[in-house]
Each structure stands twice: as structure tokens, then as C-alpha cells.
């Protein structure tokens, strides 16, 4: 007797896309994506350290400029204006041991101007680095999205197939009831049922794996997007601050020269203060930026890293849960088979199944 169930289902190749999936391959893939994220986080950590050093340098320069400004403002302390001014000059690297009369103020201010311009430029250079990182992450999101869609499709395929198999299994089980116990037909039906079960085991595992992979990739994407957003916001902040500082410096250059020259001629001290204020403003803007980004890092990056750690834990627990469930199913299946085998062995042989009956 031929089965009414559609046994073609058993020989059909399920159209999963990608290279197939296993707990190990899924872990490897996820780890690859995580490594990319980790690298970006490392880049941000380096940037944070760099920001700290820039901030320190800026703070020093600001201190010098403010001192200039204070002394020119007539707020010099004991020793009078020139003694104070001499003290100010001692803040300039390499000039600690030199007296006021030995240096040209114009030359000093120009040198300070160039140092300040270099600091702003150094900070501005990070904008491009950050934008590059941001684009790398968006590309990564695109890749993850492809994986998410792929996993979702595969899960759907697996589910459809499992349902089909279930249907065939039920039909076969119905047919089994209708044939004589122990008969060839029954044995044939049972053989097919075993095949269906094997397929069910395989593809029900796929349902779980693809479902889990989809969720995990989705979480990975969420974190990657968060990282990209962090980087984009930081780049925008740096760009805003450095552009403002750079404009201030561009506009102050002629004043710096004019005031330096005037100071060399021991004239127009108030003008000198005014010009220095412009330069100080530029340094203020930049220092503010560095300070802000540090706070930004402290409050965001650490949190982000913490979240990623949490994500690690979640990923591991999901994997463990998947493995545990798979094992449970397999155990249950094996146990059922064993139960059945035991039951069969314990029961007296039915006439229909007796060799003498044929």
C-alpha cells in the first residue's frame, strides 16, 4: 500500500540562504561583529585620552593668555607691572630664565598664535577620523541588516517546513493506525515517520537558531547604531568648536601682530589687552569643547561600554538557553524513543507481527 501522505516533503531541499547555521557558526559570526564594535569603542577610548592631553595643553595656554590679560589690565601684584609681565613671560616654554627686555613681544605673541592654531588644528583633524568611523559603522549596520533579513527568512522557511513535516507526521500516524500492527505496511509507515522525526529535529533546531540569530543581530545593530550616533554627535561638537576657534584666530591675526609691534614700542597697552582677549576667547571656546567632550565621554562612553558588557551577558545567556532547550528536546525525543522501545520490548508479540503469521 502506498502512503497518502506527501512524502516528497522529506526529499525536498529547504531553501535556506547563507552558509547554514549551527550554534558554533552563529557564535563565530556574532563574535566577528562584536570585534568590529570593540575596535570602534577602543578608537573612542584613544580619542578620550587624546582629548585629555589637548585639554591640559589648552588649559596651560589659556592660563598664559589670561595672565597676559590680567597684567595688562593693571592687576599685577607686588613688584609692579613689569615685574608681573616678566612673570607672565616665564610661562612661555623656554623663556623662564629670560628677562622682559630680552624678548620681542611681537615675536612671542606670534609664536603663541602659532601654538594655538596648531592646537585647534589638531582637534579639528579628529572630525574626519570620527566621520570615517561613523561611515564604517553605517556600513556595518547595512551588513547586519542583511543578516537580520536573512535570518528572518530562514526562520520562516524552517517554520513552514516544520509545519509541513508535522502535517505529514500526523497523516502517517493516522495511516499507521489503519494498517495491521507489525505488517510490512506498518513498518514502512514507521520508517517514514522516523524520517519525518529526524527532519523535524533538524529543522525545529533551525527554527530556534535562526530566531535567536535574528534577535541577536537586531540587538547588535541597536548597539552599533548607538555607537554611530555617539560618534556623529561628537564629530559635530568638535567641528562646531574648532570652527568657532579657528574663525577667532583668523580674525585676530592682524591684531596680534599690531599689538605685538605696539608692545615692542612700549605703547598702546590697552589695545594689547583687547587683542589678547580675542585670543583668549578663542582658547576659551576650544577649552570648553574639550571639557564638554570629556564630560560627554564620561557620561556616555562608559555607559555604552557597560551596556555592551551587559549585551555580552545577554548574548551568552541566550546561547545557553538555546543549547539547554535543544538538549531538552533531544533528550525528550531520545527518551520517548527509549520509552517506546522499552514498551515494545515488554509487550507480547502480536500475531500480525509474528513471522509465523506471514
Amino acid at each position, binding site marked *: 500500500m502506498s502512503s497518502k501522505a506527501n512524502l516528497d516533503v522529506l526529499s525536498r531541499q529547504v531553501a535556506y540562504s547563507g552558509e547554514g547555521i549551527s550554534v558554533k557558526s552563529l557564535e563565530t559570526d556574532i563574535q566577528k561583529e562584536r570585534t568590529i564594535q570593540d575596535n570602534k569603542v577602543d578608537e573612542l577610548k584613544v580619542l578620550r585620552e587624546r582629548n585629555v592631553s589637548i585639554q591640559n595643553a589648552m588649559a596651560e595656554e589659556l592660563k598664559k593668555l589670561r595672565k597676559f590679560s590680567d597684567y595688562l589690565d593693571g592687576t599685577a601684584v607686588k613688584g609692579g607691572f613689569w615685574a608681573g609681565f616678566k612673570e607672565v613671560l616665564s610661562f612661555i616654554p623656554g623663556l623662564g630664565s*629670560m628677562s622682559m*627686555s*630680552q*624678548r*620681542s613681544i*611681537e*615675536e612671542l605673541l*606670534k*609664536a603663541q*598664535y*602659532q601654538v594655538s*592654531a*596648531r592646537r585647534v*588644528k*589638531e582637534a579639528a*583633524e579628529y572630525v*574626519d*577620523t570620527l*566621520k*570615517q568611523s561613523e*561611515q564604517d559603522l*553605517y*556600513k556595518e549596520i547595512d551588513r547586519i541588516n542583511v543578516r537580520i533579513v536573512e535570518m528572518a527568512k530562514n526562520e520562516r522557511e524552517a517554520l513552514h517546513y516544520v509545519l509541513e513535516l508535522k502535517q505529514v507526521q500526523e497523516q502517517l500516524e493516522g495511516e499507521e493506525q489503519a494498517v495491521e500492527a507489525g505488517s510490512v505496511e506498518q513498518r514502512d509507515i514507521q520508517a517514514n515517520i522516523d524520517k519525518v522525526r529526524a527532519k523535524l529535529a533538524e529543522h525545529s533546531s533551525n527554527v530556534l537558531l535562526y530566531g535567536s540569530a535574528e534577535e541577536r543581530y537586531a540587538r547588535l545593530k541597536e548597539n552599533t547604531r548607538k555607537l554611530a550616533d555617539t560618534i556623529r554627535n561628537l564629530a559635530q561638537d568638535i567641528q562646531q568648536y574648532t570652527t568657532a576657534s579657528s574663525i577667532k*584666530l*583668523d*580674525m*585676530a*591675526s*592682524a*591684531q*596680534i*601682530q*599690531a599689538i*605685538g*609691534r605696539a608692545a*615692542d614700542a612700549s605703547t598702546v597697552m590697552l589695545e594689547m589687552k583687547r587683542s589678547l582677549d580675542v585670543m583668549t576667547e578663542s582658547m576659551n571656546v576650544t577649552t570648553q569643547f574639550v571639557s564638554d567632550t570629556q564630560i560627554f565621554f564620561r557620561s556616555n562612553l562608559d555607559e555604552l561600554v557597560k551596556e555592551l558588557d551587559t549585551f555580552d551577558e545577554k548574548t551568552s545567556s541566550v546561547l545557553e538557553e538555546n543549547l539547554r532547550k535543544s538538549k531538552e528536546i533531544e533528550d525528550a525525543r531520545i527518551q520517548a524513543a527509549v520509552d517506546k522501545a522499552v514498551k515494545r520490548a515488554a509487550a507480547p508479540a502480536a500475531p500480525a507481527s509474528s513471522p509465523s503469521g506471514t
Partner: protein
Amino acid sequence: MTVVALHTQALVLPEAATYLDLLGRSLHAARLSNAFPERRPLQQSLETLAESLRLGLHGELFVDSRAGLPNLASFTRALTDKSVARESLARMGDRAALEARAGEAEVFARLAAKHGYYEKLQDRELAPVDHQRVLLRRHDPASGTAAFRIELTKLDASGVYLRLGIELTQVSSLWRRKVIDLAHDGETAAASEAFGAMVYRCADLDAEALFMRLHGVEGVSVEKVQRGVIGPVLFAMPVGSGVQVMRTAEAPDDALGREWHAWSVGAGAAEHERPELLAAFATDSAALDIREERSNDPLSPLLRDRLRDQEQARYRALRERYPFKVFKDRKFVATPGLKAVAHATCAAAGTKNMIYALG
């Protein structure tokens, strides 16, 4: 008016590129001697500025509105770019990889361009904002004398770019307060801080005044003071369709400035299509070996010719204490439209000057 800050004029593309091209070519046409700041670094700075504008790395070019030359911000910009180039290149990675991703996002195309810019910049020698060095000319340990040449290249606060060369001899018996320190090897030297600063501060004085100032320093015998000054530069750049013209905004108030102003409201007012540029290159020397004292600079007559009668006697007495003579000269490089301005300036002063054509 295009002045955006004190003595600062902003030029954008395409006028800025035309201006930089004409200025660069004018340096070549001027056949500058070693009395002037070195031409090659200056030209490389101009090329760097042009390239940074062309690539969109900077939006505008800042020019000193009196001298018509790139100002401190512009000079510093090129130097700063060079100073960060190496580190930035290391962060950017491979240029081919950036070019391959150019279609992916704007940042990669920009970085690829910037990569090329920084690579070129690494090998360039750029014009310094300030640079002072001391060269040993002769050293005679037996007599205790040493002859030096001090060279200062400076972007002056007046906006012009100049080189000051001073040749002097220092006598060792007076080295208690020596102005130049000779290294132990007897081959290298450096000016003392105070002397170096004095030279720096006095760089905008004319050679005659500087000679007298330095000659008075204890233990020093000055032989020659020479200044080579690039600028002022006067320009007129058609803007857009040529309806407007961008000009040097604060031309000097001297004979050249007046001729320039007359041209701007006269023949130059109708010139809306062709960019024009006139650059002046002056030398001013005070030296023991100059035979005849005279000025061939239409913008700077000798001091004696500017003094009133009652000051002449005092001046002559002062000069008799110093054996040097003064010679001043100036040459021009001009596009066809502005050649007449140079000619008129020289004719008015009765000087005969080289006027090189800039095509």
C-alpha cells in the same frame, strides 16, 4: 569693502586662485636676489594655500589689506597643516582605500583629497613667519675677532614680507657682553637673546637707521645692513561675471598708492574682465662698500632729502661718525593694465626702475 577684520581682506575662489597664481608668478618674474626672503618657500606656501582652497579644505584666503600679501593667519595655516600632516596621514590609512570608498560618503572623497594634499605638503619647504639665523663668516682666534652674518626673515606687522641681512664683526676683548655666542667648535654661532630681540624689533627700520642703532652696540662693528622687502602688492580681481572688482582694500598712502587710486577710478575702473596685479620689491642697503649714496626707490628718498634745512646740519654731524653709505632701489612686476601705474610712479620721482611684465 572686503575687509573682514583689522587689515584683513578675505578672498574666495575663483578670485583667490587667480590672485595666488599671479602673485606666485610675480615672484618668479622679479628675479629676486638673496637680499630678499627666499622665493621657493614663499612660492610653495602660495601653492599650498591655492591647493587647500581648491580642495575645499579652507574656505577663504586672508590677505593683508595694506600690503596685499597673505597675512599671518594664511602663512600660519599652511605651516600648521604641514605640522599635523604626518600624524594625520598615519590616522587616515591608505589613500587607495579612501579613493575606493569615495562614492560611499562625502568624507571619503574629502579624505582622499586631503591625503594627497598632506603627502605633498610633507616634502614642501614653506615660508616661515619668523626665522632668524646667524652665520659665521670669518673667525680669527689670534686677533679675537669674528665676523658674522645675521639673517632675519619676517612677516612684518605692516604686512610686507622681508629679509634683513646684517654683516658685523665682533671683537673678543669686549666679549664680556657679547652679542653673538660662538660655539666651542668655532663654527656655529647664535645671537644672544637680547641682541636677537633687538634685531627683530628693529626690522622695520630702514637700513640707515638700523646701521646706526647696531653700530652703537658695545663691541660690534657693523659692515653692512641690507633689507629686501616683498610688497606692497596691489591687485584688482574681477568677481563673478566681472561686474565687480576685488581690489587691495587699504592701498598705502604714498606715491604708488595715489597712482593706484587714480588708476582705480580712471582706466582701471573700466577694467572688469582681466585680473591685474602690481608687486613691488624694494632693497635698502647701508654699507661701508657702497660708493655713492643715492636712492632709486620712487617711494623712499634718502633721509637727507627729506629733512628740513634746520635739521640738515645735525644729520650731517651724525652721519660723519659713521663711514657707511646708503643705496635704495625698487623694482616692480606688473600686468599690462598696471604697468602704467608703475611707470607713472617712477616718472614722478625721477627714478629709473626695472618694471617686469607679468603676462
